[in-house]
């Protein structure tokens, strides 16, 4: 858990959340989450029917990996809110870095809360996720 006297507005935390994303990891995510949309594992379907250059990651895999950065930063069980927009697709071979920035620290109903903005970018600097979160602070 973040400590009130150890954080300030403007603090950032970054993590490389995946390096050279493998198709197999996308398959792992499909198996664990239960989302077997062929867009994520079935190249033939994705090229010939859906019209994409090949399989791509579940948005929720990118969000899940971004969430790993977030819990590493704010601690387990401290999140009150976590939300994202998927702004670009994530492809096999991509490397992603995710950054959290504290934009506000406030008291609400006897709790101290940190308001955080989140951005996940790929190796070309393109943003694949923008988001925000609210975490309890100790």
């Amino acid at each position, binding site marked *: 858990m973040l400590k009130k006297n150890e954080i300030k507005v403007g603090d950032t935390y970054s993590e490389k959340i995946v390096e050279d994303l493998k198709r197999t990891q996308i398959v792992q995510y499909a198996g*664990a989450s239960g989302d*077997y949309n062929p867009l994520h594992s079935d190249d033939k*379907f994705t090229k*010939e*029917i859906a019209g994409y250059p090949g399989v791509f990651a579940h948005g929720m895999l990118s*969000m899940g990996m971004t*969430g790993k950065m977030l819990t*590493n930063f704010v601690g*387990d069980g401290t999140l009150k809110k976590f939300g994202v927009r998927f702004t670009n697709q994530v492809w096999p071979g991509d490397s992603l870095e995710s950054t959290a920035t504290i934009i506000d620290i406030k008291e609400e109903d006897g709790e101290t809360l940190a308001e955080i903005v989140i951005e996940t970018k790929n190796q070309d600097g393109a943003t694949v996720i923008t988001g925000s979160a609210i975490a309890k602070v100790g």
Partner: protein
Amino acid sequence: MSKIKMPVEKSHIMMFARSIGDANPKYYEEKDEDVIAPPTFIQSSAQYDPDYFLRPKIGGDNWFGSGKEATGMKSSGSGSGGGGAAMGLHAEQHYEYHQPLKVGDVISAEVKPGKTWEKESKRAGKLKFSESVTEYRNQEGELIITATSVGVVTEKPVEN
């Protein structure tokens, strides 16, 4: 509306954590105590939705992924064909956490349709957005997570 009843299990959390590359040791240790599921784990409640449309059904013959052909969907022969279902993409996902999601919880879900809207985009033509709100409750009926999902159906594949 599907009836979901999801027992939150340690092994499921471990597999999920592996898939997102989360090395938090709590997900891999033997004991169940103090394990709070990763923030997006609730998404895997799809495993417990008997009608989930993104999973091939046992004995079902209408799965839209490839086999001998590029799609197993029986096309009506006109219009957008079998690709229709696949043109749906995930646009946004928001969670509100009311209580920690823990091993041993048995979660039920109630899905409510939300707003719908349209937008024109350069990269994918006309976009049709639709929102759904899911309330996840534990065995005591206590609200654990509220999830808001926004899906988008694109007119054509997104240009990259």
